[in-house]
């Protein structure tokens, strides 16, 4: 008779309908007691074939589709597409349009980071921050609503400029928003950053090393949290970013706390950029001279921008027609999510949500 206890691994399906997977994401976790011995992320539940659809659409028509990728930062997606097309066409963009783009992009980055803060704290069990962030986000969303008529799917940028000029008083509203937001960032610092329970749950958890970050092609905050100062706004400036003063904030340990804190810091940096942009914005047209039917010259083009979640790139193969021959989107969430398996193995089950939340994914972008 055997005296050893028979143990069994437990397979736990986290998702696709689980409160903390932020959408339809499934994680098949194999557990040995409380320890995770394997984790298999399953994606594709939100796959809409954007890349395939884009092959049958004109460039202007693709813009609304990009709204639906990373739906928390649609302005940045808009920009990534039009920027690549403009790059391919070597288009000159009117100055005012570029300034408006920078303002809305940075505001959108703030809104997106705010939502990360809220949902991350909600994942960790604190529910008030989730409701607080929506207040500031609401102000940003209202600003967007005034400038482009939509709260989430903006469809604001056009090849060669932006669709609308800022309505009267809009720039002032953005200016008023900056000090308000600064106060709120301080409040979050006070509410969250010092909380012992929070610190215990995120410090030293889900550590990414520099080498791993590079090997796994991480980008955005996931990469910067490891200490690598790689921000496309600085390293490969596009739009007007070389004219603004801001810092690339990096973490030290690459743990969940760094990733959380970098979101707060990036909100501060984005506020700095918005402040400068609002102060400098010139008058003028907002749409440059663009042919009615945009035909990208044959060839292949890749441009990437610093999205809210990392390097957001658009790769266009054109055969000279008004529709792309192939459009590939480099979605930062999709690439960043790959490291999840490596981060989870060996951790205890209780850290799963803290790690998953800190990677900061948007399923619309993961699945495209």
């Amino acid at each position: 008779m055997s005296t050893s206890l028979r143990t069994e691994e437990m397979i736990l399906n986290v998702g696709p309908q689980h409160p903390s997977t932020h959408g339809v994401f499934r994680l098949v976790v194999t557990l040995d007691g409380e320890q995770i011995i394997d984790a298999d992320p399953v994606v594709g539940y939100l796959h809409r074939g954007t890349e395939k659809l884009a092959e049958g659409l004109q460039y202007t028509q693709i813009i609304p589709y990009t709204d639906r990728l990373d739906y928390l930062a649609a302005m940045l997606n808009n920009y990534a597409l039009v920027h690549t097309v403009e790059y391919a066409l070597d288009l000159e963009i009117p100055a005012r349009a570029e300034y408006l783009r920078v303002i809305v992009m940075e505001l959108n980055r703030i809104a997106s980071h705010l939502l990360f803060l809220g949902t991350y704290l909600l994942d960790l069990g604190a529910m008030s921050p989730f409701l607080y962030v929506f207040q500031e986000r609401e102000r940003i969303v209202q600003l967007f609503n005034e400038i482009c008529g939509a709260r989430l799917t903006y469809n604001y940028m056009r090849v060669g400029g932006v669709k609308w000029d800022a309505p009267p008083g809009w720039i002032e509203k953005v200016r008023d928003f900056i000090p308000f937001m600064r106060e709120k960032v301080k409040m979050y610092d006070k509410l969250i950053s010092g909380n012992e329970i929070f610190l215990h749950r995120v410090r030293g958890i889900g550590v990414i090393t520099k080498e791993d970050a590079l090997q796994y092609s991480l980008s955005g905050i996931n990469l910067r949290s490891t200490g690598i100062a790689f921000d496309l706004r600085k390293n490969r400036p596009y739009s007007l970013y070389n004219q603004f003063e801001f810092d690339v904030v990096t973490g030290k340990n690459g743990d969940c706390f760094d990733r959380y804190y970098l979101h707060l810091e990036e909100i501060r940096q984005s506020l700095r950029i918005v402040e400068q942009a609002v102060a400098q914005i010139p008058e003028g047209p907002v749409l440059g001279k663009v042919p009615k039917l945009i035909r990208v010259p044959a060839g292949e083009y890749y441009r990437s921008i610093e999205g809210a979640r990392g390097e957001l790139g658009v790769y266009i193969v054109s055969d000279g027609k008004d529709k792309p021959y192939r459009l590939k989107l480099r979605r930062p969430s999709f690439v960043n999510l790959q490291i999840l398996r490596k981060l989870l193995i060996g951790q205890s089950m209780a850290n799963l949500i803290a790690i998953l939340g800190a990677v900061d994914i948007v399923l619309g972008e993961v699945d495209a």
Partner: protein
Amino acid sequence: MFSWQTQPLTWMHFLGMLIGAVIVLFLVLFIVMYTIYFERKVIGWMQNRIGPNRVGPFGLLQSAADVFKLLLKEDIIPANADRPMFLIAPIIAFVPSFMVLAVIPYTATHIFTAGLNVGVLYYIALSSISIVGIVLGGWASNNKYSLVGGLRSAAQMISYEIPLGLSILGVIMLAGSLNLNTIVTHQATDRFGWYIIPQIIGFVVFVIAAIAELNRTPFDLPEAESELVAGYFTEYTGFRFAFYMLAEYVYVFAISALGTTLFLGGWEGPFLPSWLWFAIKTSAFIFFLFWVRATMPRIRIDQLMGFAWKVLIPVALFNILLTGALSLIL
């Protein structure tokens, strides 16, 4: 002071006791209804929302509507569940929550209170029976999340019973009695005033352990919705779910009442009627629980266990030593 215990048991007295029990039952249900309402309002206000306001004036009937909804809902029993256990678990969790209320002295006249000489012990002993209901519910649901939730709650609640009991020991040493009525009267005459002052360490330990016993944020691991969906009652619906909810909120009231009695002087206080003093103190205690819930993230399970065994129990033991030493010296 009138007490049922000193009277001979006649049919009339039995009837009186029965009526008294039913009154307490309804009173508690009423209190629970408005505890839930209070929680939703307080947390709503803290989150810049207005909270429930649709049913009745100021949403006062919201909880009643919720209870009705739960009672009218279909009672779904999962096909693979352990049927008898699944059915009985909510009741096991729920019944002790009411029974513990028997020893709480609400007013100066103990009309509804059993002046039990082992009142504190009775409370702690009965409240641990609820754990059985929770573990059974988690097990019988045959759901992995439920199971994890149920086992977590077993580990957590048993661990936190110890610091809870130890933190009360200090009070018992000062009062020299396990009877809750006596503890309240002692506090009125004690030279330090309410026991929160000489027993401040014990009080802090008590509050932390109480929150953990209640499975409330930041110790709400058994039902951590972002990890375990709903923990041990994931599979429960309708009135069985309502039983769990009810048990949870009765305990919120009961533990607040116990804390009030042990540390805040119970019904004792000047000018106002004693029941009002009791209500005010208990509400303040409950408010604190909700306030913490609105602020804190959730602690991790291993940290939670470590906290109980490595921090709370030593602190509580130290408190007992300190109390003993101080009462010898002073």
